């Protein structure tokens, strides 16, 4: 350790002259190195923190606007001669009128509203005027009318989505200059949108549809929602919970309390440690080969996703569960055995309840990881475009569905820039779920974990 003091030996004469009051050159250098080293550490931490903040700010600033959406509210006449020629209000007959028929109704309503408010539309064609409304609006109106057939013949106040580009204009994504270059929107339409806003027809409000509606096609980012994805993720989490909690607890109890120390248990232990570090995409390949090609389960079904995520999560649950069991002191077991309990009774009546908070915490964190996992789900077909809500359990587990993180991915692959905003919004929803789960885990740990 001599080189700590620097290479040159200190001459005796200088050493005598050194003072406690004034630092000599070598001490100065060493103290400076000390300060520098400390600063490196602080800088490293600050960079890590800044990266976290930057990541969150960038996602939130892009994603938050997706929760608010531009709507047009106007009175819409529902002419009986167009929507229900038979006049019997029979839904089966009325559903023969396609969305094209409803589009005409909406267009007429918008033109009337524009006239009433005295808005000058200049030389715009009727098609351009109707272009400020979402392509999804006729379908919305049609569903609403088919659900309430008695409304035909009356005038209702109805709220329809504005076109994604118009919505983008109010959120700063589309400008007059970009509209000039864009074949999907014209500057005149943006001017009209501004006037409609002044007239109170067009307004931005919180959009529940983003959370409840199903996905929408490429040209309709404004109508795309997370409904199917949230249900799909929820179903998968149920499958993961139902399978991995009993299996995970049983496996960790066996390995920690009962397993004899031999090569076989060693093998299982090494196996679990390695499985926890296997790339998640490999589990996707496993799911594709075993559950879909071999067992013939349907593609994009939550049951397959749940099974794959269960296999992936199990080792990540077993490891903390074993740690929790290990932290229960042996005196508890000895006391139980001492009063005549069997080994199994001592574990199930005493050790397991005491380890339960730790096991549950690990379980919730494992579930949270599974909720955010994307790659394996891509391989089992969860990227498919699904617009129908899956049914109720248990049948619903076999229906096609999407999942939150996969929905994010499929939105990033779409062409319309409106989908980037949607994808970031979906991530905010995902992060909120993760935050809740982790908060529950932390509270559980704080309240119930015992330190022995």
């Amino acid at each position, binding site marked *: *350790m001599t080189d700590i003091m620097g290479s040159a030996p200190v001459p005796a004469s200088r050493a005598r002259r050194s003072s406690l009051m004034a630092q000599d050159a070598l001490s100065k250098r060493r103290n400076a*190195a000390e300060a520098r080293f400390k600063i490196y*550490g602080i800088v490293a931490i600050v960079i890590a923190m800044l990266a976290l903040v930057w990541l969150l700010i960038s996602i939130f600033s892009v994603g938050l606007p997706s929760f608010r959406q531009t709507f047009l509210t106007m009175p819409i006449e529902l002419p009986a001669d167009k929507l229900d020629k038979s006049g019997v209000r029979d839904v089966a007959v009325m559903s023969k009128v396609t969305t094209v028929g409803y589009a005409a109704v909406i267009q007429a309503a918008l033109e009337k509203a524009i006239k009433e408010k005295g808005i000058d539309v200049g030389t715009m064609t009727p098609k351009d005027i109707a272009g400020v409304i979402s392509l999804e609006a006729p379908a919305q109106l049609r569903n609403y009318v088919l659900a309430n057939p008695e409304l035909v013949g009356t005038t209702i106040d109805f709220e329809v989505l504005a076109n994604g580009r118009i919505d983008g204009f109010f959120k700063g994504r589309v400008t007059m200059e970009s509209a000039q270059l864009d074949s999907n929107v014209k500057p005149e339409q943006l001017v009209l949108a501004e006037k409609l806003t002044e007239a109170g027809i067009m307004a931005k409000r919180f959009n529940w549809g983003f959370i409840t509606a199903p996905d929408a096609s490429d040209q309709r980012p404004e109508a795309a929602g997370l409904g199917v994805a949230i249900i799909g993720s929820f179903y998968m989490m149920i499958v993961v919970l139902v399978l991995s909690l009993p299996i995970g607890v049983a496996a960790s109890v066996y390995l920690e309390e009962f397993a004899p120390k031999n090569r076989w248990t060693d093998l299982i232990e090494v196996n679990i440690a*390695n499985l926890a570090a296997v790339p998640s995409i490999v589990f996707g390949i496993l799911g594709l080969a075993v559950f879909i090609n071999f067992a013939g389960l349907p593609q994009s079904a939550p049951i397959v996703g749940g099974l794959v995520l269960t296999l992936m999560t199990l080792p990540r649950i077993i490891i903390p569960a074993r740690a929790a069991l290990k932290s229960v002191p042996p005196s508890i077991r000895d006391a139980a055995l001492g009063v005549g309990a069997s080994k199994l009774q001592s574990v199930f009546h005493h050790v397991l309840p005491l380890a339960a908070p730790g096991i549950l915490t690990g379980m919730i964190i494992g579930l949270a990881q599974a909720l955010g996992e994307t790659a394996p789900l891509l391989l089992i077909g969860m990227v498919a475009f699904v617009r129908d809500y899956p049914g109720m359990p248990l049948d619903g587990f076999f229906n096609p569905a999407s999942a939150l993180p996969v929905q994010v991915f499929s939105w990033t692959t779409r062409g319309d820039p409106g989908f980037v905003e949607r994808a970031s919004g979906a991530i905010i929803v995902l992060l909120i779920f993760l935050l809740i789960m*982790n908060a529950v885990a932390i509270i559980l740990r704080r309240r119930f974990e015992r330190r022995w």
Partner: protein
Amino acid sequence: MSVSLISLIVVILAVAGFILARRRALAHSGGDARKLHSLPQYHGMTGVLFTVVPAFLVMILWLLVQPIVFENRITAMIPEATAADDATRTLVMADVRRLAAGLDQAVSQGKLREADIEGMRADLTDVRGRLAEVGVALGSNVQQSVFQAAKAYRLIRNTSSLLMTGVVLATAVAGFFYAMSRISVDYRARNVSERFMIGLLALASLVAVLTTFGIVFSLVFETWHFFTLYPPFDFFFGTVWSPRFGGGSTLGILPLIWGTLYVSFIALLVAVPIGLMSAIYLSEYASKRVRTVVKPLIEILAGIPTIVYGLFALITVGPLLRDYFAMPLGLGNSSSSVMTAGLVMGIMVIPFVSSLSDDIINAVPQSMRDGSLAVGATQSETIRKVVLPAALPGVVGAILLAASRAIGETMIVVLGAGAAAKLSLNPFEAMTTITVKIVSQLTGDTEFASAETLVAFALGLSLFVITLCLNVFALYIVRKYREQYE
């Protein structure tokens, strides 16, 4: 009968088993539980276990073996001419299954009767048209041989389902009566049920082994399949990756391995200094208060799903690097690049390096620090010359684990690194990795049995082997290191 219905019956039988076995035990002892060897509920427990467990095991085994048997029986029925090789056979099998499902649907909707199907011939009736009526769209007209196979498939399936119901319920009932017959005053019900339970626990711990087995088996099997279609030498040593749908692809893994290693290298270049320095600061300098705040904050980075990082790379980091670095330097104009993916992945990997290194540095005995400080070394000198050398093996293990994490990472590279397989040194160029290509080959529309799809399994196997070696090596180092100071 459906699986859920059978399960329900078995469960009801088990509940009955519990109640009856308990009652029987009490009856044997004349109502005095003290005379029994085991408490009455343990007698009940044996009733449950003997009813449920064998029945469910039989059912699971049946469901696992069933598809193999079906496949063999049906494939044998299809003439050689229609299914010349593996690829077409898989397609024909899919047709058979779809047709059978269509017939089921037609029957359940009442459009067809079983007797009708028996007499139907694909060359005489328009099967495709009939099925279209019930909403089952078939791709092409149905061949007679395929139709016969579908009929046979339905027959086997129905017989199998009937047989399974019989066998499973018989097992359950047999278990039930076996449990009942064993009950007596001296029956050691507690010992029996406990041994049974421990067996079940051991079975649960086998799931992990089965998973590994499943991974290895499916990867090796399909990879071997791939190598019958594509020469292994060209795969492992080919420098060109250009899959063509419709055959004639060149599938060399080297550009993908290069991309993977390049991205991971940049990620480690970011993560190792930052992670290591913050671990050192947190374990050696920081006060307890700072530590309790900063440590969880860094670990948040590990809890964020990788798709979030992927989107971050796509919408923020990528365009930023392109506009301020790549374009002014004239190195490229692509927003997805090795640099983008590497930087973002580096951020993701920081907590893996820092928290493991933190543990390891904390495990270095305090006496070593004290000794160094006592001879007059400053704190940073102690860290650099005493603590770090002592912790080095562990830190290397942590870095290797982080590297395996980076190599297996998918979403960040899918969204950040690009899709072009290239062997280039320019970090601002788009390159691609093994994981990206697994995703793109398996989510495409090509038929499953083609080399273009099966190559994903060979890639998966390579990835599995690489990460497994890194993990085993890293875990070995970390374990050895821990033992050293315990």
